C-alpha cells in the first residue's frame, strides 16, 4: 500500500517545523513533498537581522540542510511556487507546470510585506525586509557606498521591530540611515511612549536619524531611488529605501482555492481549514480572530497540527506573545497587553541614572503585560507569570524590582520593612552620597520633616528620586510622630515631586521633552494624566522658549482648538481688540462672521472684547480666516495666557484723565499678547484714580496719576475676589512697560501651573516680589530681557496657521455614517 501523500506549500519556518513535528511523532506515516518559492533550504528567518548586521553568515542560519531532506525522504521543490490548488481532485499545480496530487495539504505560505502604494514604490532600490533576496539587495547597496567615496544613504520606512533591525544592520554596514516612522513613538505596538522615547534617544546616539510623525508622500528618482519626500515637504536623499511597515498574511492561493478567509486563512483548533484535507499553519492563518507575526505561536501551532495529523488531537488555543528587539546593546522587551483598561493598574519604575524603564500591568492580581527597557533580565520571569496567570498578590509591591528582589523572602512586600532591613551604611541618596545611618542620625537629631532632612543631610535635595526612601526612614524612625505630609503639594498623583522641584530640575538637568521629564523624574504612570501633562508642557515651554516643541495633545481643548468650548460643545471666538478699541471695519468683519457662520450670540465680554458664540468646530478655521483677513488676530480668550488689557479713555477724552491710558493699554497689549502663563492673566490701565478700568482687581494694574504711574499686582475678580497689592510707582510709560514685563516673567518662571497671580503673590509674599522687581534693578532688567526673548517665539497668531490649513484634520469629521442603504461615505 502506498503511503498517503502530504504536500507542504511553503518551505519557511512554520512549514518545516510542522514537518519536523510530524516526523517526530511518526516518521513513516506520510510521503512528504515541500514546495518552496525561494531557492534556499529551510533557514531561520529571524536570523536575517543578525545576517544583515554581519553577526552571522548564511550557513549559520540554515535550520535544515539538504541532508535532512534526503534523510527523511522529503521531496524538496525549490524556486517553484505553487500557483493553484484543485480541491475537487486534490492536486496542486506549481508555476513550472508540475502537478502533484495530495491526500493532506498544509499551507504555510507566511506573509507578504506590506508596501505603501506611494508614487515611486516600484523604483529600483526599494526593497522590503523579508527574505534572502532582500538582504542581498541591502548588502549590495551598502557595499556600493555613496558618491565620492562617502557612505551610502538609506531610508527605512517603518520604526517597528523589523524597520529598526534593518536600520541597525545597515548602519553597521556603514550606511547613513534615516528611519521614518509615521507614529509619534517608535515600536508603538510593543512599547509605550516612555520606552519608545528612550529607544529613540539611544538610536540617535548611535548616529541614526529618527524622524517620527513622518508621513511619506513619495519616493523619487529617475529609474532608481534617489530619495524620499515627506508630506511636509522635507526631502531625504537615499539610494536604498527599505519598507518595513508591516505584513499581511499571504492568502492568495487559499483564496483562489475558495477556502474560508478572514485576515488570514481560517483554521480551527486543529489547524484545519474549511476543507478537511487542507491544514494551514504559521503567519498565513487566522485562529480565533488573531493572526500572529512571531515564531513562538507557530511552534505551538505546529505541535497541535502534528497531533491532529498523526497522534491524538490536542487542540491549539492561541498564544500570548513577547518580543525582544535584536539590536545589540539595546535591551527592549515587551509582552502581553500593556494598554491597560478597566481594573488595570500600572506599576512603573524609572531609574534615570541606569537608563532603565519598567512597566508591569497588573489586573486583578495577575500580570497582563510588561514593557522593559534597559534592563530586560526579568522579562522571562514576567512573561512566565503572565502565561501561567500566576497570582501575584503576595509579591505585588516588590514585583517591579524583579525576580531576585520579589522572591527573596527577606524583602517583604512592605516597602518600609524593606528599607528597615537595609544596613546602616546602605546608600540612600545617590546624588549626595548619604547613607541610611546618616539620615536616621539626622532624624533622631531633630530633623523630623522631609525638608529638615533635606537641609541638614542633603539627602533627596538634588534629583529627589530617593524622596520615598527618606520618607520611609522618617516613618520608621519616628513612628506615629511622623505626620507623613509634605508641605507643598506634588504636581499630581503621577509623581512625588512638587511643582517647584519639577521647574528647578527641568533647568538643572536640561530636560527638554515631556517623556524625558517623566523618565528622569521617575513618573509612576506611563504617559501622565490630564493634570501633569499640561503643566509639564507649560514648564518646558517657559524654560526653553524657541527650543521646546509644544505638545498639542498635552493642552486643554481650548488651547488645542484656539477657541472656547461651551456647554453644548460649540465654540466661541474672541478676536483681539487692542486696548478695547475697535473700528467700523473690524465691527463689520465680526458682524459678517456672525451672520455667515450662524453665530447664536455676540456679546461684549468683561474684558471689553466681542465674543462670537455658537461656532461649530468644523467652521473654526474659516471663521479665523475671515477675521484674519480683516486684520484681526486671536484674542487668546481661551488660553492660559495674556487675555486682555482693559482701558478707560483717559486724557484723550475724559475730563479727569491724567495720562493716555488707552494708548498705554494698547502698547501693553502689543507687548504682552501671545505670552503663555501658568493661568489666565489680565491687565488694566485706568487714566486716574477713579479707576474706570477696574485696574485694582487685575493681575497687573496701572493707575495713571499726574506724576506718573502707580503699578499694582495680584488682583483677581474671580471666585475669590482680591484687590491688588501696591507694587511701586514709576514716572515714565517705558518704566511701566518694563516693570510689567518683569513681573509677568517672574510669574511665568516661578508660579505653579494653574496658580493665578493672587494665590502666588500670597504664597511667596509681596516683599519677595518687591525685592525681585523693585529693589533689584539688574534682576528686573534680566527678567524683562527674558520676557522679550520668549515673546520672539510666542507672538504668533495661532489662528493664522490654522486658517492656512495646519492641523486641518482636527477640525474635520473622520467620516460620516449614514444608515442604509449604502451605509458609509467619507467626509
Amino acid at each position, binding site marked *: 500500500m502506498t503511503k498517503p501523500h502530504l504536500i507542504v506549500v511553503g518551505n519557511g519556518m512554520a512549514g518545516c517545523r510542522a514537518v519536523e513535528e510530524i516526523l517526530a511523532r511518526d516518521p513513516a506515516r506520510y510521503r512528504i513533498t515541500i514546495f518552496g518559492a525561494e531557492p534556499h533550504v529551510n533557514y531561520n528567518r529571524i536570523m536575517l537581522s543578525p545576517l544583515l548586521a554581519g553577526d552571522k553568515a548564511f550557513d549559520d542560519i540554515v535550520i535544515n540542510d539538504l541532508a535532512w531532506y534526503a534523510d527523511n525522504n522529503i521531496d524538496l521543490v525549490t524556486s517553484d511556487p505553487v500557483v493553484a490548488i484543485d480541491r475537487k481532485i486534490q492536486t496542486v499545480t506549481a508555476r513550472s507546470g508540475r502537478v502533484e496530487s495530495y491526500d493532506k495539504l498544509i499551507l504555510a505560505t507566511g506573509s507578504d510585506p506590506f508596501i505603501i502604494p506611494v508614487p515611486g514604490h516600484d523604483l529600483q532600490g526599494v526593497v522590503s525586509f523579508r527574505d534572502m533576496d532582500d538582504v542581498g539587495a541591502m548588502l549590495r547597496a551598502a557595499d556600493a557606498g555613496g558618491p565620492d567615496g562617502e557612505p551610502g544613504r538609506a531610508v527605512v520606512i517603518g520604526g517597528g521591530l523589523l524597520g529598526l533591525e534593518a536600520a541597525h544592520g545597515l548602519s553597521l554596514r556603514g550606511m547613513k540611515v534615516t528611519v521614518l516612522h509615521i507614529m509619534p513613538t517608535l515600536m508603538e505596538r510593543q512599547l509605550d511612549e516612555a520606552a519608545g522615547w528612550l529607544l529613540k534617544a539611544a538610536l540617535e546616539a548611535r548616529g541614526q536619524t529618527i524622524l517620527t510623525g513622518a508621513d511619506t508622500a513619495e519616493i523619487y528618482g529617475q529609474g532608481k531611488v534617489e530619495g524620499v519626500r515627506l508630506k511636509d515637504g522635507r526631502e531625504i536623499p537615499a539610494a536604498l529605501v527599505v519598507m518595513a511597515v508591516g505584513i499581511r498574511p499571504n492568502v492568495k492561493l487559499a483564496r483562489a482555492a475558495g477556502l474560508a478567509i478572514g485576515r488570514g486563512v481560517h483554521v480551527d483548533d486543529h489547524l484545519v481549514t474549511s476543507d478537511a484535507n487542507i491544514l494551514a499553519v504559521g503567519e498565513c492563518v487566522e485562529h480565533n480572530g488573531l493572526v500572529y507575526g512571531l515564531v513562538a505561536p507557530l511552534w505551538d501551532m505546529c505541535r497541535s497540527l502534528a497531533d491532529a495529523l498523526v497522534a491524538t488531537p490536542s487542540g491549539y488555543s492561541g498564544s500570548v506573545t513577547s518580543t525582544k528587539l535584536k539590536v545589540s546593546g539595546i535591551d527592549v522587551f515587551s509582552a502581553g497587553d500593556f*494598554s491597560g*483598561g478597566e481594573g488595570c493598574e500600572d506599576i512603573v519604575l524609572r531609574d534615570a541614572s541606569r537608563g532603565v524603564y519598567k512597566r508591569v500591568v497588573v489586573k486583578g492580581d495577575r500580570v497582563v503585560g510588561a514593557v522593559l527597557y534597559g534592563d530586560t533580565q526579568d522579562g522571562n520571569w514576567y512573561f512566565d507569570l503572565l502565561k501561567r496567570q500566576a497570582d501575584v498578590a503576595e509579591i505585588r509591591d516588590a514585583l517591579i524590582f524583579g525576580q531576585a528582589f520579589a522572591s527573596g523572602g527577606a524583602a517583604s512586600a512592605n516597602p518600609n520593612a524593606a528599607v528597615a532591613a537595609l544596613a546602616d551604611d546602605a546608600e540612600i541618596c545617590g546624588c549626595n552620597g548619604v547613607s541610611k545611618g546618616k539620615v536616621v542620625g539626622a532624624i533622631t537629631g531633630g530633623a523630623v520633616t522631609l525638608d529638615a532632612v533635606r537641609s541638614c543631610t542633603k539627602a533627596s535635595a538634588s534629583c529627589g528620586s530617593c524622596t520615598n526612601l527618606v520618607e520611609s526612614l522618617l516613618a520608621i524612625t519616628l513612628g506615629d510622630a511622623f505626620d507623613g505630609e509634605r508641605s507643598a503639594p506634588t504636581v499630581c498623583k503621577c509623581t512625588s515631586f512638587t511643582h517647584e522641584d519639577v521647574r528647578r530640575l527641568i533647568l538643572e538637568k536640561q530636560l527638554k521633552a515631556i517623556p524625558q521629564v517623566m523618565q528622569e523624574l521617575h513618573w509612576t504612570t506611563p504617559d501622565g494624566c*490630564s493634570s501633569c501633562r499640561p503643566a509639564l508642557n507649560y514648564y518646558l515651554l517657559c524654560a526653553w522658549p524657541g527650543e521646546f516643541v509644544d505638545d498639542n*495633545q498635552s493642552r486643554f481643548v481650548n488651547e488645542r482648538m484656539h477657541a472656547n*468650548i461651551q456647554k453644548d460643545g460649540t465654540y466661541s471666538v474672541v478676536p483681539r481688540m487692542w486696548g478695547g478699541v475697535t473700528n467700523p471695519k473690524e465691527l463689520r468683519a465680526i458682524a459678517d462672521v456672525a451672520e455667515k457662520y450662524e453665530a447664536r450670540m455676540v456679546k461684549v465680554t468683561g474684558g471689553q472684547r466681542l465674543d462670537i458664540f455658537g461656532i461649530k468646530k468644523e467652521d473654526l478655521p474659516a471663521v479665523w480666516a475671515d477675521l484674519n483677513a480683516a486684520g484681526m488676530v486671536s484674542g487668546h480668550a481661551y488660553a492660559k495666557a495674556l487675555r486682555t488689557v482693559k482701558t478707560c479713555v483717559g486724557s484723550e477724552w475724559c475730563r479727569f484723565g491724567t495720562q493716555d491710558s488707552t494708548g498705554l493699554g494698547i502698547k501693553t497689549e502689543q507687548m504682552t499678547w501671545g505670552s503663555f502663563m501658568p493661568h489666565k492673566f489680565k491687565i488694566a490701565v485706568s487714566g486716574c484714580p477713579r479707576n474706570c478700568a477696574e485696574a485694582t482687581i487685575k493681575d497687573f494694574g496701572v493707575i495713571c496719576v499726574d506724576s506718573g504711574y502707580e503699578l499694582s499686582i495680584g488682583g483677581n475678580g474671580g471666585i475669590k475676589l482680591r484687590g491688588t497689592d501696591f507694587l511701586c510707582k514709576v514716572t515714565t510709560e517705558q518704566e511701566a512697560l518694563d516693570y510689567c514685563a518683569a513681573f509677568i516673567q517672574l510669574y511665568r518662571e516661578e508660579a505653579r501651573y494653574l496658580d493665578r497671580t493672587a494665590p502666588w503673590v500670597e504664597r511667596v509674599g509681596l516683599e519677595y516680589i518687591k525685592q525681585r522687581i523693585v529693589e533689584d534693578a539688574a534682576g528686573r532688567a534680566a527678567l524683562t530681557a527674558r520676557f522679550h526673548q520668549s515673546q520672539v517665539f510666542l507672538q504668533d497668531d495661532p489662528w493664522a496657521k490654522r486658517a492656512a490649513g495646519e492641523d486641518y*484634520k*482636527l477640525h474635520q469629521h*473622520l467620516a460620516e*455614517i449614514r444608515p*442604509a442603504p449604502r451605509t458609509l461615505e467619507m467626509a
Partner: protein
Amino acid sequence: MLPEWLDIGPVDQLPALGARTLPVRGGREIAIFHTANGEVYALANQCPHKAGPLSQGIVHDTTVTCPLHNWRISLVTGEALGEDKGCVPVIPVKIDGGRILIGRAAALAGVAA
C-alpha cells in the same frame, strides 16, 4: 447582507493621543480615540455627566478626561472612573491593514428606527 464592520478610513488620520469624530445620520456622534501606543477605541461622543464632547478631552493611557468638567472616562469600558458614576456606550473597533473598522450594529444603535 450588510457588512458587520464599517471601514472609516486610515489610522494615520488619527492624531496620537487625540481623537476625531464620526457623525451618524440620525444618531449619536461617535468619538474615535488613539492612545500613545497606537490602540484605537470608540465611544459615543457624549460624557455621561452633561454630554460633554469626549473627543475634545485629553487622552492619557486608556482614559479620556472630559473637557467640560474633568470626569475621567475609560476608553475600554466607557465607565466613569473614580468617584463619578455613569457610562457611555462603547463601539467595537479594530484595525486591519492600517484601516479603522468599527462595529456597524453598535455604531447605528443610536439611530432612531
